């Protein structure tokens, strides 16, 4: 015992280099989560779904751009593009949101994160930002293709300038889309530790809400109730965004018909901001307690 119990000094040293700190940890977590969303740096299998979704979105944009070049006028505006493929955005968020948060919960690695300078709120906000950015990129890539097609087909500098304004509005609207669906899907993903269940709940909720607002709009138009016609949009995320679109965004050539909002536009804006804020607060509250 006397000889075998010795701890030899083989030159253990303290780490004396620079410590990168909290900001660096948050930025790394954000960057790696965003890469995970598109399957970058991971196996081929996990690239299939995000790029399948991006492929459909890009395909729609290419078709729209080609038709516009042939016909000489836009068939689908930058802002209505997001409305047109909203199902795809929902599906993408329903898969990516839980992918980013549920795996950490399920495999119980959160204590490892929280033993770093990273706080609980930092973790939640970095994951939320990554989901929102991924959904925004999903919409921004096709919008850029549409813009390039429009800008090269434009007659002069003035037309290109108008095109830039419309493109910027489209990117802004895409950001609202990404914020709403990203916040909802990250919250649900953080509550369910199984990705598949969370995805089914998010998509089921979206389908249900859309169908309910459809039923209420049917009742509203059948009974000629103006109040109901202007408020049914508040019942589902997709129509809520359409209401914000009708209220806050200037009309563009090639707009799809949006829902009637009457004088209630600001209410749509407020409800939108409220839902996003509520989801973020609930997410922060969830991560205040959760250990695994």
């Amino acid at each position, binding site marked *: 015992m006397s000889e075998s119990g010795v701890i030899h000094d083989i030159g253990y040293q303290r780490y004396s280099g620079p410590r990168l700190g909290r900001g660096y940890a948050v930025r790394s977590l954000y960057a790696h989560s965003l890469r995970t969303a598109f399957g970058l740096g991971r196996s081929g299998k*996990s690239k299939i779904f995000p790029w399948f979704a991006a492929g459909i979105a890009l395909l729609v944009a290419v078709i729209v751009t080609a038709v516009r070049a042939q016909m000489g006028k836009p068939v689908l505006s930058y802002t209505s593009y997001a409305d047109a493929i909203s*199902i*795809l955005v929902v599906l993408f968020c329903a898969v990516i949101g839980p992918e980013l948060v549920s795996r950490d919960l399920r495999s119980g690695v959160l204590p490892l994160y929280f033993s770093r300078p990273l706080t609980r709120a930092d973790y939640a906000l970095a994951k939320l930002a990554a989901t929102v950015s991924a959904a925004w990129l999903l919409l921004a890539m096709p919008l850029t293709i549409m813009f390039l097609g429009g800008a090269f087909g434009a007659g002069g500098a003035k037309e290109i300038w108008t095109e830039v304004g419309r493109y910027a509005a489209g990117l802004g609207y895409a950001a609202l889309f990404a914020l709403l669906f990203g916040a909802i899907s990250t919250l649900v993903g953080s509550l369910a530790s199984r990705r598949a*269940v969370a995805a*089914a709940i998010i998509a*089921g909720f979206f*389908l*249900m809400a859309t169908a309910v607002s459809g*039923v209420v709009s049917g*009742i509203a138009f059948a009974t000629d109730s103006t109040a109901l016609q202007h408020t049914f949009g508040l019942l589902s995320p997709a129509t809520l965004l359409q209401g914000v679109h009708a209220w806050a965004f200037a009309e563009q050539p090639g707009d799809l018909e949006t829902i009637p909002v009457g004088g209630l536009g600001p209410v749509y804006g407020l409800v939108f901001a409220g839902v996003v804020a509520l989801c973020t607060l609930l997410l922060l509250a969830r991560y205040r307690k959760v250990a695994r």
Partner: protein
Amino acid sequence: MNLTIASITLRGLLGRARFLFLLPLPVIMLGLAWLADSLGAAPADWVGPIVGGLGVAVVLPVMALIVGTGVLGSEIDDGTVVHILTKPLPRREIILAKLAVATGVTALVAGIPLFLVGLLAEGVRLGLGLFVAAVAGSLAYCALFLALSLLTRRPVLVGLAYVLLWEGLLGNLLKGTRLLSIQQNVVALADAISGSDLVKSTISTPFAVGAVVVFAVGGTWLAIDRLRSFSVAGETS
């Protein structure tokens, strides 16, 4: 068909908290139908959106997705499927028992509310038509999703893509894809059985019956075939 497997599956399905997520959907559908009826709207105005837009397009596929992928998928996920596979039972019996339970539960949670909506709107015949169509739809959807849970590691994702993109997005853009959509064939069946003006479809009755049978038998056969050569793998990617 093996009663022990069926009872274990049923217990595994109903004993989970996630089963409670299923209940709000049919309740909301019934609530909306009752609200529309009590507000005095004509059935012609609300039956289309509630039955076609909500019941057959959302409640039935979402229920079937959660139940159909849950009966076998959850056992594959947590690895307990090995216990069933090592028993001296033909794989056919395992699949048939699971399919029967999934179809029964889906028909119960989606079919009964649809029956009540039909009863409220017009009468027993519309209710029965919707119920029978919902049972046939449950069988077709559950067979499809059961086969999916053996074909891929992420059956819910693929099933969601089918429901959202194929039936939802493409079904509205390219009318031809409706022929290969379970949802539209279920509407056609309901139309044929009820003979009501409130539920309308463009698909002919023999085609709808054939399509539902092909989905149900094809899905079941595929599931049995896949379970015969099933290999248990660890979690990857």
